[in-house]
């Protein structure tokens, strides 16, 4: 396929940035520095990276409770993300949102979301705005296997086809909604099998192969930009961590986890890039070192930032209008 070396290196960099951010968040959570819940994206990096590498800053995404990867892939700054998960005033949401509610309208990130299945109608609405304003921008909706069974997801897909909206539904099938395995929660083997019901293309992919994701998402996004309507892409993947940090994972075996770690999207892509001569071992080390420094800087920015003042509790609820 037609993909530049620069693009490949960029994707490799983004995947590593997501992984290192997540692993540091995991450590900070274990150290008691992060309040609330965190749901980590480690293991699923190829999906967000492959999809978002096709997007412009003016395109929109909706994300999920497991949103850090989507945000980084859409251009989110790890400094402001780290500050937000730490609950600091300098975070993306001034400490009002936390891990599950990071958003940045300027980057087209319409928000991580704590409600499973809330994103699809929002993404369809963003796509409606793109269509209404005669742009060729698109919206991408990331959602999980859990959300694939919610009514909102189906309502959004139906309306998206009825109105031929420029939206791409990206199902991240990591096989589990907390402990509930898709074997028990779905009556068809693939989420994308349902695409036929909404007269849209449905594609099933190896979600740990970033090049495959990039290519399939590229086709779907191209289709959406051309006014040909929505698509559903299902990426089969796996989360290396529990549903949330601290999850004892009693519902899956170590063998299963090990098997999926063998298919870890980052080493896989790295071998491929080494094989293609796009990267050298020295270069990979250099990239990783530079991301490591970036994450360390983000952490010290977050740690040294102030918490919001209690007086800020009532700020930013309503937009003032002079009518």
């Amino acid at each position, binding site marked *: 396929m037609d993909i530049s070396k620069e693009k490949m290196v960029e994707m490799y960099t983004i995947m590593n940035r997501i992984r290192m951010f997540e692993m540091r968040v995991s450590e900070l959570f274990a150290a008691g520095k992060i309040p609330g819940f965190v749901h980590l994206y480690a293991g699923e990096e190829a999906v967000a990276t492959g999809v978002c590498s096709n997007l412009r800053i003016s395109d*929109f995404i909706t994300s999920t409770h497991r949103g850090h990867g989507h945000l980084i892939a859409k251009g989110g700054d790890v400094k402001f993300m780290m500050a937000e998960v730490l609950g600091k005033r300098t975070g993306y949401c*001034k400490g009002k949102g936390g891990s599950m509610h990071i958003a940045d*309208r300027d980057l087209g990130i319409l928000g991580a979301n704590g409600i499973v299945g809330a994103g699809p*109608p*929002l993404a369809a609405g963003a796509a409606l705005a793109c269509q209404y304003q005669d742009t060729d921008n698109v919206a991408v909706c990331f959602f999980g296997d859990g959300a694939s069974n919610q009514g*909102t997801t189906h309502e959004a897909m139906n309306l998206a086809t009825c109105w031929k909206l420029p939206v791409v539904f990206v199902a991240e099938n990591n096989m589990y909604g907390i402990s509930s395995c898709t074997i028990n929660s779905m009556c068809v083997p693939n989420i994308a099998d349902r695409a036929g019901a909404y007269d849209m293309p449905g594609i099933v992919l190896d979600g740990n192969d970033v090049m495959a994701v990039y290519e399939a998402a590229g086709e779907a996004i191209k289709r959406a930009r051309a006014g040909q309507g929505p698509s559903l892409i299902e990426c089969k993947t796996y989360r290396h961590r529990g549903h949330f940090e601290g999850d004892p994972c009693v519902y899956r075996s170590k063998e299963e986890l090990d098997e999926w770690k063998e298919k870890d999207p980052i080493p896989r892509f790295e071998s491929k890039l080494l094989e293609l001569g796009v990267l050298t071992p020295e270069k990979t080390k250099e990239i990783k070192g530079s991301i490591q420094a970036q994450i360390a800087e983000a952490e010290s920015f977050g740690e040294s930032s102030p918490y919001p003042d209690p007086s800020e509790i009532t700020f930013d609820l*309503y*937009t003032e209008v002079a009518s």
Partner: protein
Amino acid sequence: MPAMTFAQALNDAHKIEMQRDPNIYVAGEDVGVYGGIFGVTSGLLEQFGAKRVKDTPITESAIIGTAVGAASCGLRPVVELMFIDFIGVSMDQLFNQAAKMKYMFGGKAKIPMVLRATCGAGIGAAAQHSQCLEAWFMHIPGLKVVMPSTPADAKGLLISSIRDDNPVVFLEHKILYALEGEVPSGEYTIPLGKAAIKREGKDLTIVATAQAVHTALSAAEQLAGEGISAEVLDPRTLNPLDEESILESVRKTHRVVIVHEAVKFAGPGAEIAALIAEKAFDRLDAPILRVAAPFVPVPFSPPLEKEFVPSVEKVVKAAKTVMES
């Protein structure tokens, strides 16, 4: 000033605003070809076309959800939920998404949308097409809640709601659609959060909303015949609530009756009564009384439905009770 019905006044507001701002679109079930089940969006499809006036499937979550998404990306949706009772299947998109986005994203979101819906009993529509649920929405930080009682207020408040940069729940009592009244022409606005004194009086204040305003006015007329001067105050907007106008009236009359069609328990009147108790307790000469629906779903059979809705007789009785204590 031309006379028009409440429904026509709302229609007029839509047309004026849609002409002014191309980013406004209307969507909902039967809002286009049919013109809205109560006629509020009549003629909009013909005038503005299918891009701006969207008939939707029966898909309330997607109607509201797409509105929230579109509003966050620069459009100004005015969507119709045929009956407010249908909010049950789409509430997440309103209260967890639209209402919270600005706050939980640290101020960096703007959701300029209006959710219009009909509410209220009186036509035998029974338990799932007749409720007054304004207290639900009052309880959600981030929303504004508007409930007009006259054609002129309906127009002025709808235009202001459409121009507001926050999600607004705009509740239209179905009994009012045919009510006629004089309505200022052109771009007439009424600020959200400003109550109206619908009848001046000095002996007691009757705070009432929507259809209950007319019940209160009839009661006030009857009370006047018995030498009691009742002031009727319509908050018009329940959030923001015009606290000062309510307190000012109470400081003048020292007696209060609150009338609404939502059930009495934890209804909107509870908040208004608490406000008065907290801020004007020492100006009260009698306990605050509420005349509101009993704590039951809206019943179907005509005598039961009539019993459910606050009546003039009940308001008069409550007024006399506060006058006697």
